[in-house]
């Protein structure tokens, strides 16, 4: 079963596509969490329960959006590719590995696309959970969440750099810069309100 799945993923380059989706939607999730937490941090008057609810709501919305959008687009793309291949081979491929891959691979890619923002979001807001369950931090847990978000975005950049063959540190600092600029814009807007 595992060998079959590995073969089907290789047949369709599903691992490469899933990796791309993981970074893209993971970046979305991490940056959304950073934005939300920055907003709550600057307002400084919201309870942890409300912050967790808002962050969790956003994470779940991103997850569902990621699952559905990736499944719909990948499923359509795979069907199109299968039809084109059938036309080129002048053969029905219903019983082939290609047809099985066209059915299975969209589920795998949708799962990666959906779970990436959820897992990264849960990781970023983990200090808020600990605080909610009574663990006391020597400083504001929101600040710790913001630091984790920066580290996560840096790690995603470094990961992109590593797989693209570029210098991982430079790539990591690029995404970190995006996060810092985003945080700066949010703080500026908050001051205007």
């Amino acid at each position: 079963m595992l060998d079959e799945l590995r073969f089907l993923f290789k047949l369709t380059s599903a691992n490469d596509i899933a990796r791309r989706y993981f970074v893209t939607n993971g970046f979305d999730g991490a940056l959304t969490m950073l934005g939300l937490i920055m907003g709550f941090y600057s307002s400084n008057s919201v309870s942890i329960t409300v912050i967790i609810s808002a962050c969790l709501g956003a994470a779940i919305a991103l997850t569902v959006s990621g699952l559905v959008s990736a499944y719909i687009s990948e499923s359509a793309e795979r069907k199109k590719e299968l039809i084109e291949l059938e036309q080129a081979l002048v053969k029905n491929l219903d019983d082939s590995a290609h047809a099985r891959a066209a059915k299975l691979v969209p589920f795998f890619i949708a799962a990666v696309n959906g779970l990436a923002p959820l897992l990264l979001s849960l990781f970023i807001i983990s200090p808020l959970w600990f605080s909610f369950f009574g663990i006391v931090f020597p400083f504001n847990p929101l600040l710790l969440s913001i630091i984790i978000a920066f580290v996560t975005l840096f790690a995603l950049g470094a990961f992109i750099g590593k797989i693209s063959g570029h210098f991982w540190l430079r790539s990591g600092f690029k995404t970190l810069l995006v996060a810092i600029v985003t945080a700066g814009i949010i703080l500026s807007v908050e001051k205007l309100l």
Partner: protein
Amino acid sequence: MPQLNRIVLDVLKPHQPSILEFASTIADQHPNCQVKITVSEVDEKTETTIITIEGDNIPYQAIAETISNLGGSIHSIDEVAVNNVAKSET
């Protein structure tokens, strides 16, 4: 009893799986078969290949199913070698 010992097939296949994976899968699923694949023509989405299989008592139907499962389409059987093995030897 006649036994198939060599068969040459003209097969149109997609680019993926590669001929290395194609040959490995056939050999893996049909032990005692030696598989050789030559690409004779490459198109945008497909490649025409000549698959030569050698071995004792080659299970042609099972091999045809494996090729079909990998997305290949057998266009013709170009060559066969069959041995008639005496019953006392089997």
